[in-house]
């Protein structure tokens, strides 16, 4: 068997196509990395706040009919965007005021427009307009963002004291609940402001700044959910928010930049498998789809089948070779990304391990980069193996490599559409369909998949079943094949 496999490998590695394809993939990777390393987010920002965008948005305002109930919301969104841009543009590009304006003014302006055009509540309108004025004043008068934060801090501290005082009174249940909610909200705001001051975190889009903002909004959103009586969607939101809060807490407590949002070598490497598994599929299917069929079309199958080996051994050696090629492809591309990423962004980020949210323990766990990537790989292994086997089986039955490759790609590309239809249909038995069971990524770290009928055991068992069916069919056909005229 070893001899058979080594022969097959020799034949595969003499094919030019494998090197051409790998070369193209690595070139694409290099391009992606270099482009990502050069992306300047300020360019995007420049456009958003630029003259052109304002003009575009202003002209699109005319398209909305304010009398039409459905179009009012769109009008409000667009008008808010315009007002927001104009407000932010009052401040210099690198000033701290601009950054605070960017963070804080959007919500206020939205509320203003909503009161003006939707609810048409003049009292509410006046309140929000005053809020905006207040913000403006502070930005003008304060010399430094720290002063701004200190002032806000003082406001919340006194608010908290007031609420606590009022809670000692005898109140009815609903008033008490509302006050407690307000208390918690204020405490959250206070915590964030204190953190900024204590740790000198300005509004500069750094990872701590982002974490603070996320922390704030997630906690506030969490307060809106009534824990006792949650609907299905609310439960999902609850879990998502919990994950976000735990993640941000980890970042803030450990001052570790573990987010995968920014572009650096580690982040690209961590998401590599999920983003680029199509490369693995293309190369493996190319080989698996041709390894049997080409012997027939070239006529070399005759030279192969008259050797002292049973037919199933010969076919098995080819099948195993396909797996080896799969491993080879993954190894080469991972290595390429590691090196290219390191050169494009620097190798330092690789020392930061992956910190992921474990749904089981509901906490952040530290996982080495390699282990995280290996887990992601194992999660899509059923898909890779099933596609490889599909190409191999079609190739053996029909001795046409183009048919094998085309049908396998068809399956790959339409799998997401098919899955969507199955999920919509809510037919339970269809959750066992091959394209549904072959991706285990949602189960990683104790996670539960979004589609309720998916179970890990079912996925693994059904994947094995489909695999065995294809394998048996291909071995049976090959055993009884007549080698006709070539």
């Amino acid at each position: 068997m070893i001899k058979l496999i080594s022969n097959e490998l020799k034949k595969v590695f003499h094919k030019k196509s494998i090197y051409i394809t790998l070369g193209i993939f690595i070139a694409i990777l290099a391009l992606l990395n270099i482009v990502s390393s050069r992306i300047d987010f300020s360019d995007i920002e420049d456009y958003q706040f630029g003259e052109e965008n304002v003009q575009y948005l202003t002209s699109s305002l005319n398209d909305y009919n304010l009398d039409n109930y459905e179009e009012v919301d769109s009008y409000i969104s667009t008008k808010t965007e315009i007002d927001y841009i104009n407000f932010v543009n009052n401040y210099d590009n690198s000033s701290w005021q601009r950054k605070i304006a960017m963070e804080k003014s959007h919500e206020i302006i939205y509320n203003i427009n909503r009161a003006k055009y939707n609810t048409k509540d003049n009292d509410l309108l006046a309140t929000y307009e005053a809020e905006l004025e207040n913000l403006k004043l502070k930005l003008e008068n304060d010399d430094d963002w720290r002063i701004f934060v200190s002032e806000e801090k003082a406001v919340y501290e006194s608010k908290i004291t007031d609420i606590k005082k009022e809670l000692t009174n005898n109140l009815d249940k609903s008033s008490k609940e509302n006050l407690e909610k307000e208390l918690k909200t204020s405490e959250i705001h206070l915590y964030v402001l204190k953190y900024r001051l204590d740790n000198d975190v300005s509004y500069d889009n750094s990872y701590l700044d982002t974490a603070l903002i996320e922390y704030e909004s997630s906690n506030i959103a969490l307060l809106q959910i009534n824990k006792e009586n949650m609907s299905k969607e609310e439960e999902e939101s609850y879990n998502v928010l919990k994950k976000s809060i735990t993640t941000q807490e980890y970042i803030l407590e450990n001052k570790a930049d573990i987010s995968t949002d920014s572009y650096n070598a580690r982040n690209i490497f961590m998401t590599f498998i999920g983003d680029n598994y199509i490369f693995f599929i293309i190369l493996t299917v190319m080989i698996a789809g041709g390894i049997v069929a080409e012997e027939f079309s070239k006529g070399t199958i005759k030279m192969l089948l008259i050797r002292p080996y049973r037919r199933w051994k010969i076919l098995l050696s080819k099948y195993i070779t396909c797996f080896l090629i799969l491993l080879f492809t993954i190894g080469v591309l991972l290595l390429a990304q590691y090196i290219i990423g390191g050169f494009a962004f620097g190798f330092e980020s690789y020392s930061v391990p992956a910190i992921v949210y474990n749904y089981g323990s509901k906490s952040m766990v530290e996982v080495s980069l390699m282990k995280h990537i290996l887990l992601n790989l194992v999660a899509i292994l059923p898909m890779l193996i099933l596609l490889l086997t599909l190409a191999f089986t079609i190739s053996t039955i029909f001795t046409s490599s183009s048919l094998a490759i085309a049908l396998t790609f068809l399956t790959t590309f339409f799998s997401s559409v098919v899955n969507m239809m199955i999920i919509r249909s809510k037919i339970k038995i269809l959750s066992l369909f091959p394209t549904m069971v072959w991706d285990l990524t949602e189960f990683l770290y104790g996670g539960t998949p979004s589609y309720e009928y998916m179970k890990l055991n079912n996925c693994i068992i059904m994947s094995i079943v489909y695999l065995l069916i294809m394998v048996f069919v291909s071995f049976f056909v090959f055993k009884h094949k007549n080698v006709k005229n070539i």
Partner: protein
Amino acid sequence: MAEPILKCEKLTKRFGTKTILKDCSFEIFEGDILAFIGPNGAGKTTTIKLILGLQNITSGNVIINGYDVEKDFVKAIDKVGAIVENPDLYMNLTGRQNLELIANYYKDVTKKRIDKVVELTGLKNRINDKVGKYSLGMRQRLGIAQALLNSPKLLILDEPTNGLDPEGIKELRDLMLSLAKDEKIAIFVSSHNLSELESFCNKVCIIQNGSIIETSEVNKLKRKAAKPVYSLELSKTTGLKKLLSKYKFETTNDNTISIEITKNDVPQLLKTLLDNKIKVFSCVEKEMSLEEAFLKRTGGNVID
């Protein structure tokens, strides 16, 4: 008597409703060179494919070296070398790499053996070139080389002279003869080219429309075909019909006739001719060619 190296018993092959081979039986012993001949479409390549396990046998047995090809394939095929139709090899590899791949399938084929086989087939100068660059003749030689790698006891060659120039054919013939004589290999050769086969085969098996119509030694076949034939070169061939009315003869050109006559009657014939003032320039027993014998036996060719 020794065991046959290859024994086919009532081989039958059906493809749906079409019967390609019907009850074909024959044997080959060591040292034999069997010519497997038949018109186009007779079933020669199919027979070879059944022997080698490339197609399924509908009924009948193939026994090689005492092992049944269906029950004991690995042992049966171990000492067999073959070329089927064209010797298809990997075009993007060199001749040597192709041979190394094949050598890897056997336990005891060493580098020395590869070199020996390369030399035997005259490929030493081009063995390291890619097969895609070989001429047809070279590919044929490489095909023969790979068939010899495992020092087979049975060699099965499907039209091996395809694409070989006369020198190549001569080399092949000499090689076959020495293999059969020195190493006692049994060789099974199928071909259309009867004149070539004639020079080295000792047995013949004729197949037509899926059935074997004759198996015998070459000499016997030729003799069996008809009475001996004599070729006479004469001064004129006109007006002989009346004179030679009791013989069967034909005029092959202006001055030559071929006449079926036993050896004892030859003097009488000569006397008849000379008495009638016909000059005789030569009188020679004609060896019937295998081609003629074959055509006589198959009586022309009809492909179903």
